[in-house]
């Protein structure tokens, strides 16, 4: 119950922080050495990159799921603890899919962040973070929040075999 609440809070914060990520900067671009650099006003928004969009969407889904699934443990507490019903199976299956989705969104956002930070000389993808410092820092903070949230979802799923094993060994 507590884990779901923590997961909800962290994914909500991550979704909001990543979703409000917008930065407009005056970027000096040096086309030819020796000439003064060209100043262009460029904007970096979260929905310019498909992986950040995926990140925000997945965090929003995980947050909504954590909110709706908080009802299940409350319903189960009323009944016997030893009842392993179909609804518990469904909740654990959905928890697992949330873990997988959250981890994939974290991986995607981290990969894009690394490319934006370091660039890739082989594919001629230039660094971006030297110009949009606030955008990159905010994106990094959202990633950390999402990692913490996915850690709590992971703990939720890891508690399943522990509880089952304890229940099974108590009866033997």
């Amino acid at each position, binding site marked *: 119950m507590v884990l779901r609440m923590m997961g909800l809070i962290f994914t909500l914060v991550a979704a909001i922080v990543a979703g409000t990520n917008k930065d407009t900067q005056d970027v000096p671009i040096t086309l030819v050495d020796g000439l003064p650099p060209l100043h262009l006003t460029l904007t970096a928004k979260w929905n310019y990159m498909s992986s950040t969009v995926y990140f925000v969407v997945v965090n929003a889904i995980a947050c909504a799921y954590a909110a709706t699934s908080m009802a299940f443990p409350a319903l189960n507490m009323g009944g016997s603890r030893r009842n392993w019903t179909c609804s518990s199976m469904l909740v654990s299956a959905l928890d697992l899919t949330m873990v*997988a989705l959250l981890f994939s969104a974290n991986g995607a956002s981290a*990969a894009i962040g690394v490319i934006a930070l370091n660039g890739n000389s082989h594919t001629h*993808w230039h660094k971006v973070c030297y110009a949009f410092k606030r955008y990159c820092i905010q994106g990094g903070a959202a990633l950390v929040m999402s990692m913490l949230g996915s850690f709590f979802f992971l703990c939720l799923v890891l508690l399943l075999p522990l509880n089952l094993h304890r229940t099974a060994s108590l009866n033997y």
Partner: protein
Amino acid sequence: MATHEPEKVGPPAEASVAEPEKAAPPPTTGPTDYFKVADVVLRLLVFASALVSVVVMSISKQTEIVPTPFPPYRAPLPAKFNHSPALIYFVAALCVAGFFSILTALGSLYSLFKPGCSAKIISHFIIIDVLLLGIVASATGAAASVAYIGLKGNTHVGWGKVCNMYGKFCRYIGASIGVSLFSTVLLLLLVLLSVYSLSKKIPK
């Protein structure tokens, strides 16, 4: 003589006891045996798909002649998976996943032949499988995001497409990511199967 008498008494008693015993085992041990067999098969499939992903990603090297602004005006430029840190992470994570999946496959084969403390083994395997699921899902997400940018490019950041020049490279990477997505789904099913079979062991 003394040894023959218990033998004569033995078989009739065994015959009368054997019939209810024959009726009892199949309903209880049948489904759990299928679970264990399915468990081993799924784990071997996960290992196979991780291996296929790693191999396909590793052999996806392509060298193309690209125009350069200075003489000799045309130079060969290779594209390999280790040009991108996300793809290196993908290969490493899938190697780890393949290694652990073969270990757990051997473990569940062992528990198939010796049905001793299988509940403990299953709960340990669930933990390993969930962690593997997280690792493989994150690797798939990272590689897919980089591959998507390579496919479509991104005009806002000034990152150009790569796939219009390197067709074979992009196809191989796409296939590798597709197979790793399949192994993610398999790992998910494995955990659900293990949780279900563990829940069956709780007497109601």
